[in-house]
């Protein structure tokens, strides 16, 4: 069986792209690099899932994600999502790109403690059917690195209520250190085809290069499940099939 192909958009200074590519490979997928200037659908036509990796796309200039959101490929992705042909996943800065592009509700503001910080954070998985979290069990607690200067999720009260009511909060922080509204870390669109997670699971996939773990430093690989989920979604007969709506 051929490996499911997964697109990875190579925005300038999407510094986590190389690690996302490694994570996709380790999870059994075949990463396909996509140029952000792509304007034609054929490049994404045979893909079921595209990841917007994290990092500092376009240097975080203007606002994190703002410049990436205006790249030509974004309208190609949006059209494919509207046609129910594609799932788009944003990790870290990639989530910021999705809110800036209006593909997910809400937006991001500066950390409670200003400036860039990296830390390991514990999250609770709240949705086990999404394209990003189908490999987990309900209430699984996962430890992932989080790197951001603007990592606090915010949205209007109406948007937040809608996210909760529709089960679209897929991952929540265990504590309030991120300053995010309702400790939201990961969300899904209503149709389950657009997903964002403010974390960097691509740095928790290899023993020795992962997060802290009771058995020893760097042994935590809780991020694997997110990529396994994505590869499963890409391998499913159609994108909607894996979103247990």
């Amino acid at each position, binding site marked *: 069986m051929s490996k499911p192909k997964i697109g990875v958009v190579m925005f300038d200074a999407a*510094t986590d792209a190389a*690690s996302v590519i490694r994570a996709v490979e380790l999870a059994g997928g075949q990463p396909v690099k996509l140029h952000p200037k792509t304007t034609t659908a054929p490049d994404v036509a045979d893909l079921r899932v595209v990841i917007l990796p994290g990092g500092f796309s376009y*240097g975080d200039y203007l606002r994190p994600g703002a410049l990436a959101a205006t790249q030509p490929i974004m309208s190609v992705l949006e059209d494919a999502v509207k046609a129910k042909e594609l799932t788009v996943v944003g990790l870290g800065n990639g989530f910021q790109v999705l809110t800036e592009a209006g593909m997910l509700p809400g937006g991001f503001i500066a950390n409670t403690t*200003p400036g*860039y910080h*990296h830390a390991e954070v514990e999250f609770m998985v709240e949705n086990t059917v999404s394209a990003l979290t189908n490999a987990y069990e309900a209430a699984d607690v996962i430890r992932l*690195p989080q790197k951001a200067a603007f990592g606090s999720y915010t949205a209007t009260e109406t948007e937040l209520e809608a996210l909760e009511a529709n089960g679209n909060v897929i991952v929540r922080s265990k504590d309030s250190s991120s300053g995010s509204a309702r400790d939201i870390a990961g969300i899904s669109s209503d149709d389950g085809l657009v997903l964002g997670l403010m974390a960097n699971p691509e740095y928790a996939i290899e023993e020795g*290069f992962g997060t802290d773990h009771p058995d*020893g430093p*760097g042994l935590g690989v809780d991020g694997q499940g997110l990529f396994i989920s994505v590869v499963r979604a890409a391998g499913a007969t159609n994108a909607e099939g894996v979103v247990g709506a």
Partner: protein
Amino acid sequence: MHNTQLDTVAHAGKTPEVEQPWAALGLNAEEYGRIRDILGRRPTEAELAMYSSMWSEHTSYKSSKVHLRQFGEKTTEEMQQHMLVGLGENAGVVDLGDGWAVTFKVESHNSPSYLEPFQGAATGIGGVVRDIISMGARPVAVLDSLRVGHEDHEDTARIVKGAVAGVGHYGNILGVPNIAGETAFDAVFQGNPLVNAGAVGVLRHEDLRLAQASGTGNKIVLFGARTGGDGIGGAAMSSAAFDDEGAANTPVVQAGDPLQENVIIEATLELFATSLVEGIQDLGAAGIACATSELAAGGDGGMHVELTNVLLRDEGLSAGDILMSESQERMMAVVTPENQTAFEQIMEKYGVEYSWLGEVNDSGRLTIDWNGERIVDVDPTTVADGGPVYERPYARPEWLDTVQADTFRASDAAASLPETGEELKAAVIELMASANMADRSWLTSQTDTSVGGNTRQAAPNDSGVLRVDEETGMGIGLAIDCNSRYVYLDPYVGSQLAVAESYRNVATSGATPLGISDGLNFGSPEDPGVMWQFAESTRGIADACMELGIPVTGGNVSLYNQTVDTPIHPTPMIVTLGRYDDVATAVPSWLHPAFDGSAIYLLGETFDELDGSEFAHLRGHLGGVPPKVNLAKEQQLAGLLSNASRTHMLDAAHDLSDGGLAGALSDMVLAAGVGVRINLDYITERDGIDAFTALFSESQGRALVAVPLSEEVRFRGIAESRNYPSLRIGVVDASSQALELQDLFAITIDELREGWATALPKRFGN
């Protein structure tokens, strides 16, 4: 410099009497006369700008050269066996085996970082990373070493906050992890902080590139950012001491654009992969003047440049300004005519601007035209390599006798030393809450340590550890160290101690040291006392490397670090590079809860050595002589540690340096909140010292290791067979939540953490 008439070569030949601003450009009368002799006429404005930049201390190493020669002379064939490229290039290149090589370098960015800490530090990272790319390598890690003023001085927050944020901002957007660094506070750096940035790159042997312009007819291309008016005269500024006002009088700090550099890295690596460049040079100090003269001097010797072709940010720049501009994120390359189209396609693919400036020829001259008129016509070797070399007078300063005679034990500071358990406990808490010993996470959390996914270890470990080969796990370890107080007390011994500490840190994490690079920060070479410190320091480093059998692969010199007549403490920062067959054998420097029950051993002996120590610093004392250095012992210890880690005998290992045993134990306990039970009696009885000395002395050649019970027999065996002093002083007790020194005191981890964790955030925010 903005005359209405263009100062052409022809005009200069006809107007020998024109007064020229050579002194303002940092040249002395003799140097100016020498330029006139070389040219047989007065230099044009553009030529004067080139010579003054290239002959500045910062670029030409005119005062330091005679001493740096030792690094090439005090070496053996065996030491050079891993060197692919040695001293003199942008950075040394060391063979890692299996076709892999690594290049690393540290550079000072001290004066810009005082004026504008954020941009100064940011562009420091940018510049050293471009040096690494110029060697054909992919940058895989950065590191930084900071020396700032007293932690409670009103100006210190400006410097440390700006510099740390700048290092983080630039490195983060480049996508290069920051894996090692150190920061120390001392009033002596108040008006002249040190910001040294380092970078590491890896490459395949066949990708190695050097700064050479060879092949008549080949094209010269400038690519990357446009040239603006920033940083003009930066090289000359770096070669002058700050005056009473605390700042030079021109806006000479460049602004960095890390997004541009990120794109340039990818574009340049693709140029290498497709073999489209014959030679390459980054633009740093003295910009185009430096790059053209160095490329030409390194190649066939001739080059012609049309300066009018340079893409500008500011159309009002004069020819001299364009030559001297230190605008960041620019590279210059040599491309064959056949490859021009392919080169342009790559630039367009990445959206990088470029302009063809000229071509290589065999004239032996570097000629530069501006609007059709010749403004430079020089022999490039006289610019790049023909600068003056000074044998500056040096002499041991008289004050040193007084300083060395003022030992800590005989001083007022030692009138009442902690003796009882309660007093010792208070002293440990105070030590760990001091700015130099406190938790570094306020600094290190601002930099991305994991990007790339190959970081095995970063702060708070003794050294950064990075995987190079994903197939085999082969990788590198890096540490940067220098105790400036030791160097001040005895520059020869102190510099050897800096080498020893850096070397020991790399070995403690389990790597085999392969070589060092240095960043030499000193005061004014015109002061014979400073020059003596420099001479002694370089002699110490060269001798230490000879004895340890590892080469000096490259380095950087920064002089004139002083405020009025007060020089900084001499600070030769030493980066040691080590190699792992497999980074999976790297050992952390701290205790993890999983290490519960492991035995703690102290390797090495403790003597009464408190002069220059962190404890003496805490008591406001600096005098006496630094700890004794024993490089044969260091080599033995390194062999023991790398052998024990390679064969999986160690859970953790931490070297003893600043703060001695008290500092090392506290570091190990605090990182993850894992307690230990220690009995100092073994040390005090064997070494004939008291508990205070056992805790705070900074004797060298020591390390703490945590050994799982299952490995103790094997571990004792190798320590004995290698005849290295080893004492089992305690055990890891994860549940105790305390640093317990039996029969003396117990400090709960919360009590110890309080001051340690808050010392930096409470001063500098967050």
